[in-house]
C-alpha cells in the first residue's frame, strides 16, 4: 500500500494506471447499477475522468 502511494507521489505509471482503471470500472458499474439514480447521473463524469487519466498516465515513466 505504501509503495502504491509512493508511486502516486513520484508520478509512476503503474499506480496511476491502476487508479485510472479503478475509476473506469467504477464509472461503468455506476452507469449500469439499478439502485440509485444519482450514481447513474455521475457515472459519465467518473468514466471520463478515468479515461482521460488513463491516456495521460500511460505516458508516465515506469
Amino acid at each position: 500500500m505504501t509503495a502504491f502511494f509512493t508511486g502516486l507521489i513520484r508520478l509512476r505509471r503503474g499506480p496511476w494506471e491502476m487508479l485510472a482503471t479503478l475509476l473506469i470500472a467504477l464509472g461503468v458499474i455506476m452507469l449500469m447499477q439499478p439502485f440509485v439514480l444519482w450514481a447513474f447521473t455521475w457515472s459519465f463524469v467518473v468514466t471520463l475522468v478515468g479515461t482521460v487519466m488513463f491516456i495521460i498516465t500511460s505516458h508516465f515513466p515506469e
Partner: protein
Amino acid sequence: MTDTIPASRPIRRRIRALSDRSIAWLFVAPTIFLLLAVNIFPLIWTIRLSFTDFRANRPNREVEWVGLENYRRILTDPDIWNTMQVTAHFLVWTIALQVLIGFTLAWLINRKFRGNDLWTTLIVLPMMLSPAVVGNFWTFFYQPQIGLFNYVVSFFSGVDPSSFTMIGSVTLAPWAIIIVDTWMWSPFVMLICLAGLRSIPDYIYEAAEIDRASKWRQFWTITVPMVLPFLMLAVLFRGIENFKMFDLVVQLTGGGPGSTTELASINLKREAFEKWRTGYSSAFAVILFVTVFGLASIYVKALNKVKDR
C-alpha cells in the same frame, strides 16, 4: 513512344531522390487520410452536435447551442437508466454463461481424444455465422408452434410447447437474447481459454504430481491462475462487444416486447433515426463511446500483460 520516355525520366529521378522517410509517408498517407475522414472527423462532428439541439430531419432549422443540457437530460432520464439496466442484465449473464461454458469446453477439448479437431471445428461454427443470419434462424427456433427450442424444452420439462413464447414474453425475451448470444460466442471464449490451457507447460503438472497434489488442487493452483489472464481478455473483449450489441437483438426481438430487450445501442438508433433528436442522440453516443473507450484502454493493458508473459 519517343515522347513518353523523356517525360518519365524526371519522375523516376524524383522518386529515386525521395528519402525512405518520405516514401514511408507516401504509403501511410492514404490510410491516415481515410482514418481522419471516416473516424476522426465524424467523432469530432458528433461531439460538436452533442452540444446542440440539431435535428437531422430539419437541416434548415436554426441550430441552437444548448451546452451540457443534452448530457444532463440523458443522465437524469429514468428511461435511459432502464435501458442501461437492460444492457447490464444482458452483459452480466452473457459473460457469466460464456465464461462458464467456454472454459468447460476448452478444458474438455484440451484432453487428447479421437476426433478432437472435428469437435473443435463443429463447436467453433456458430461464431463464424453472420449475426443477422443467426438472429433470423433463432426466430424460427423460438416459434411456439414449429420452433425446435420449444419442443426441446417441452421434451425435458413436459410443458406444452405452444404454452410459452420466448420472444413475445416480457419475462422470457431477455433470456432469449442471452441464450442466442451465449450459443454464438461461447466458442470464442473457448478458443481463448484453449490458448491459455495449451500455454501451461507439462512440467508444472509433473512437479505437482510428484508433490502428490490432487487433481482438484492442481486445477485451482495451476490451471485457473495460468488461464486467468486469457480469461480476463475474453471477458473484456466480450464485454466491449456486448455493450455495443445491436444487430443480433434487432433481428431477434427489435428491442421488444415493450422495451424489455431495448439495449443502449437500440435506444440510441431510435433516438437518432426514428425520433430524429440528433443532438440528444449524439450526446448519448458520446457517453457510450467514452465508456467503451475506457474499457478498451483496460483491454489493451490486459493484452500487453498477457503478451509480456
